[in-house]
């Protein structure tokens, strides 16, 4: 137990870093995901095909390769990102491709009549999407979105490989400094992630129940 209590402030400081990483990446992925998902649902091929390409390309890559790509290749291209921001970009862009598919499915689930009625009232295509279709679609997608965000929180642990000093990186440092207490230290990390993610998934389930009612 001493192994955990002695290093608690050091490890918990990383939890704050993880939270910042997760929140920024969620915001980025939500913006990009809704945008690409709306493009994916557009009728014009010129708009739809780039969105399909974006989604398929990103979804066929393992996240770890994507993180290394963002970090090393972006810096070669002249974008000098710190590991933290490279991590935010990698997690945000990666998750946005999965969100876009969910948004697309949500938009497809809104009855066609909603579109036609809004258009018949004189709303433009973009306004119909923003004010009529998307709000309804977003409500239906809420549970799927939350489970995608839980995945993102789990994935923040992977950016430790490019040197972001987040929660799990600090846990690993603690573990290799002590060397004798792997079960206590790693168990502590597992419990922290479990409480966070399981709590969120319970919340998502309640949301689901309320929407069904």
């Amino acid at each position: 137990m001493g192994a955990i209590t002695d290093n608690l402030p050091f490890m918990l400081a990383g939890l704050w870093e993880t939270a910042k990483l997760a929140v920024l990446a969620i915001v980025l992925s939500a913006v990009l995901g809704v945008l690409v998902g709306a493009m994916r649902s557009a009728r014009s091929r010129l708009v739809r095909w780039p969105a399909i390409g974006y989604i398929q390309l990103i979804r066929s890559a393992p996240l770890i390769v994507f993180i290394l790509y963002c970090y090393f290749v972006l810096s070669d291209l002249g974008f000098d990102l710190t590991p933290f921001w490279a991590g935010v970009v990698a997690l945000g862009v990666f998750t946005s491709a999965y969100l876009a598919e969910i948004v697309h499915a949500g938009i497809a689930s809104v009855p066609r009549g909603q579109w036609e009625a809004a258009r018949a009232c004189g709303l433009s295509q973009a306004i119909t999407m923003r004010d009529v279709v998307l709000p309804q679609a977003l409500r239906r997608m809420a549970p799927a979105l939350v489970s995608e965000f839980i995945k993102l929180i789990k994935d923040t642990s992977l950016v430790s490989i490019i040197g972001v000093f987040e929660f799990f990186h600090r846990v690993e440092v603690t573990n290799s400094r002590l060397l004798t207490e792997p079960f206590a230290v790693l168990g502590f990390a597992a419990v922290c992630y479990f409480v966070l993610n399981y709590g969120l998934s319970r919340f998502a389930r309640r949301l689901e129940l309320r929407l069904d009612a």
Partner: protein
Amino acid sequence: MFNDLSWSVVLDDPGRSFLLHGAWVSLQLAVLAIIGSTVVGTLVALGRVSTAPALAPLRWLLSAYVEFFRNVPLLVQLVFWSFGMFSLDLVRAAAAPLNPVYSNQFLAGLLGLTIYTSAYVAEALRSGIQSVPRGQLEAARAGGLGYWAAMRAVVLPQAFALAFPAIGNQYISATKNTSVVMAIGVTDVVFQAQQIESATFAAFEAYTAALVIFVVICLAESALLALVVRGMLTRVRPGVRTAAPTPALES
């Protein structure tokens, strides 16, 4: 940087043989983890759909298993198996006979990946079992089959066919997730790409090569899975069609 690309670092030796060796390691890891997680996941799903009152503690335990392994990051689990379990003399001794073929890191990675994936496979299969109409089991029991015989011969084949698109997505995720084992020192494709990158500074070439290898493996896998789904469905329910797994639905 795009003016002076040097693809020779990945297309010629030694880079090429590094990557091919890594691809072979990743492929073995993916195939073994898929087989292992299917076996474990099936057992867990069967336990979770059991109805005997005496098995209630088992059901609780299995749902804890599924929730725990799905909510803790794979990296944390892998580090736990490799630096926790594989630091015990007992475990190292038990793994020793396999060491001429597989390193302890590989075995820890395989164990972690198998258990992680099995939780997802169990959930997919459980919903497949639950979507087989209850009457199927009842008819089989009324026809004289025991519970397990009815499960094995009647319910499971249909459940697998119904759940296979979802399970197939988990297989593809598992294949992509093999890349996480590089963090515990397994010499997979990404590990080798990183070696090439740190020796030559050709980040774009090295990681693009790793990416291409993964894309090829995943596309081949999803084509194969689509064939399996079609075969399963026509065998169990002629005429029914379900969507084939698309590559990489889950990360």
